């Protein structure tokens, strides 16, 4: 049992901290957003240069072949600096599904191609097994029909990973196959939206879209769940960075801001609130570690750790974000401080791949399954 970083990991952490400090310049961030830039392209390019886009990609495919801990370290820095890049989807989720020989991996590592996962449908809400989008054999290939309700960072994606039903009923766990669809595919409509987090997301409508199978036919759900869990942990690490930024900013504000002739931090009720924010960060970090370190555990143990973390880190994050705004007062609601933007990003992360209510149910089911 060991929660310490290896020397290499510690170096990576330091490097991420420098990166976050550099790209965390908030006025510059606001200028990029105001200019309508769909993601932080210069940060993305630098991440590619540093090799971070390939952290979760096998060495044989041009990546660094690292594990969840390194992924977590990078994602924390992204959260801390509010960096708007499609890291979890393109560099964590997609590489977990692509074959080592897939040439896309090289483009992902180079940052020249973005891959997004279109894993949810309106009728299924957050249930990955609820797949109504159909895939029918046509000639030597497949043709997809259906719609996907939310694709994180999907607006700038070059490729989509699309689960479709090749057998069974609409909510069956078997009979789901994963497909790779280029954004330019005939019959594919990409509806682009800006989120409250200033990430650019998408919805998909597929009408007779030709697509190539990714992995095996009918058995796509298991690999998809494993890949999504890796993306979830990356997003939780991002949330962690964001939460700690809020915690630190708020603490500094309490120490300097004066009201009624005293610093805000001298008021006991606010002190205790600040303490609860600090505890929430400790809880979240503990769950993040447990989840990251169990990504390679058997499915039920992984499910319990990841869903537990997704539910509770989300609750802790929203508590920290809400209290950060509250303790900043009016200025916390202004878009001129990073505080409000951290809240907005955390609120989006909270629903990515399932909200707290959904994951609490998954956690309970996994807990009961493991006890049985």
């Amino acid at each position, binding site marked *: 049992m060991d929660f310490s970083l290896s020397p290499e990991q510690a170096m990576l952490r330091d490097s991420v901290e420098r990166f976050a400090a550099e790209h965390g310049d908030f006025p510059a961030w606001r200028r990029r957003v105001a200019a309508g830039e769909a993601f932080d392209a210069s940060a993305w390019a630098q991440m590619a240069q540093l090799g971070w886009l390939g952290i979760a990609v096998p060495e044989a495919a041009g990546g660094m072949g690292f594990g969840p801990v390194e992924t977590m370290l990078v994602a924390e820095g992204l959260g801390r600096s509010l960096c708007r890049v499609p890291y979890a989807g393109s560099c964590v989720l997609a590489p977990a599904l692509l074959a080592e020989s897939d040439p896309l991996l090289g483009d992902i590592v180079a940052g020249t191609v973005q891959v997004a996962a279109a894993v949810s449908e309106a*009728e299924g*809400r957050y249930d990955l097994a609820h797949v109504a989008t159909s895939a029918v054999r046509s000639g030597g290939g497949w043709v997809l029909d259906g719609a996907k309700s939310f694709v994180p960072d999907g607006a700038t994606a070059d490729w989509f990973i699309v689960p479709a039903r090749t057998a069974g009923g609409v909510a069956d766990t078997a009979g789901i196959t994963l497909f790779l669809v280029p954004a330019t595919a005939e019959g594919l409509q990409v509806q682009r939206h800006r989120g409250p987090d200033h990430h650019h997301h998408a919805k998909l409508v597929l009408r007779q879209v030709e697509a190539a199978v990714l992995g095996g036919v009918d058995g796509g759900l298991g690999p998809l769940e494993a890949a999504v869990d890796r993306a979830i942990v990356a997003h939780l690490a991002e949330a962690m960075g964001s939460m700690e930024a809020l915690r630190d900013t708020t603490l500094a504000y309490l120490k300097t801001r004066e009201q009624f002739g005293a610093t805000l931090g001298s008021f006991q009720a606010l002190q205790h609130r600040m303490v609860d924010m600090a505890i929430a960060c400790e809880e979240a970090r503990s769950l993040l570690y447990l989840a990251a370190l169990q990504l390679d555990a058997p499915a039920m143990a992984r499910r319990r750790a990841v869903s537990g973390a997704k539910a509770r880190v989300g609750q802790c994050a929203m508590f920290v974000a809400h209290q950060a705004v509250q303790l900043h007062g009016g200025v916390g609601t202004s878009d001129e401080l990073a505080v409000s933007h951290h809240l*907005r990003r955390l609120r989006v992360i909270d629903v990515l791949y399932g909200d707290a209510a959904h994951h609490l149910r998954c956690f309970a089911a996994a807990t009961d399954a493991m006890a049985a």
Partner: protein
Amino acid sequence: MNLAFSAAEEAFRQEVRAFLAANVDGPMREMVRTGMRPEPAEIQAWQRRMHAQGWSAPTWPREHGGTGWSPTQYFIYETEAARAYAPVQPHQGLELIGPIIFTYGSEAQKAKYLPRILSGEAWWCQGYSEPGAGSDLASLKTRAVRDGDHYVVNGQKIWTSYAQAATNIFCLVRTEVKPRKQEGISLLLIDMDTPGIRVRPIITLDERHHVNEVFFDEVRVPAENLVGEEGRGWGYGKVLLDRERGISAAGALRLAQFVRVVKERAAAVRDSGSALLAQPDFRGKLAQIEVEMLALEGMSLRTLADAEAGVDSGPRGSMLKIRWSELVQRITELWAEALGTDAALMEPYTGVEAADEMPHAMAAYLHMRVTTIYGGANEVQRNIIAWRALGL
């Protein structure tokens, strides 16, 4: 003790209902129903209709042009307005500065300002908060120096709602520096088109422009625009305290409209093929909020009944503010939760339009974060209850 309304009150309810049915038009109804807050121009248009009906000021006495309604009548009006998705009236003129003017203002001020508040022609904004003060309002620094028959104002206000649309601003300014910071503060009425006033927008969490910074640079204000006596401006706000209770009590009733929209959404949203609203845990969360709203409604009714009977309802005004703001946050959180990832689609830029409610739930959730901060942060409200009501 009883919850019944008199026959006259029931007749009044029918009158209100008929007026609202005839006057709340479709677009306005949809805007309120979906949680969009109307812009000043829309609220002013509504105020003109209320004015035409003779209902410009439901909380004012008749002598100043108000309806002279009893608290119960006001309660009935607000209940029906919430049910009909009617917009609110211009709050700052009607509830914040109007009553101060008709209580402390000169006859000339009453004649000049009140009619335009009632008709909806004037839009007032409030110059109280300052960047360095926060909830500690009295530590304000904006100075007004007497120069002949003018005051010369220099300084800065912040969180000024709809200053960009306002015709007038009422400002607390420091006319003298005294050891007790509540002294030496004066209340000035200032036309927004006076030279030297500059408005800078602040965009808030919900991506909307409703608050501002207002800068005063050598702004010359006629001395006749001073309300009451110089240096006594701090005390004039007290007239609002008693009124405020009844008003926040009625405001609590508007919460019901969020419950309705959450239910509509959650009935339409599917989770694994069935309605989200049918899930026991979602319904349970909503029921918990509803039952707390019922308590708030009960607190409001008791406060209105106290107002009707002329009885002091103690700290219940602060309690209503605390509970209302906590609940409006929870209900809008649940609204956004019901919409799921659809709530995260703030602004469509290609392809088809987003469904109507999409940006509204998220914007409402984000906007409501400010309710526990404004009007005296909830922490300050708790201090007030502890000191004044509990003697701690």
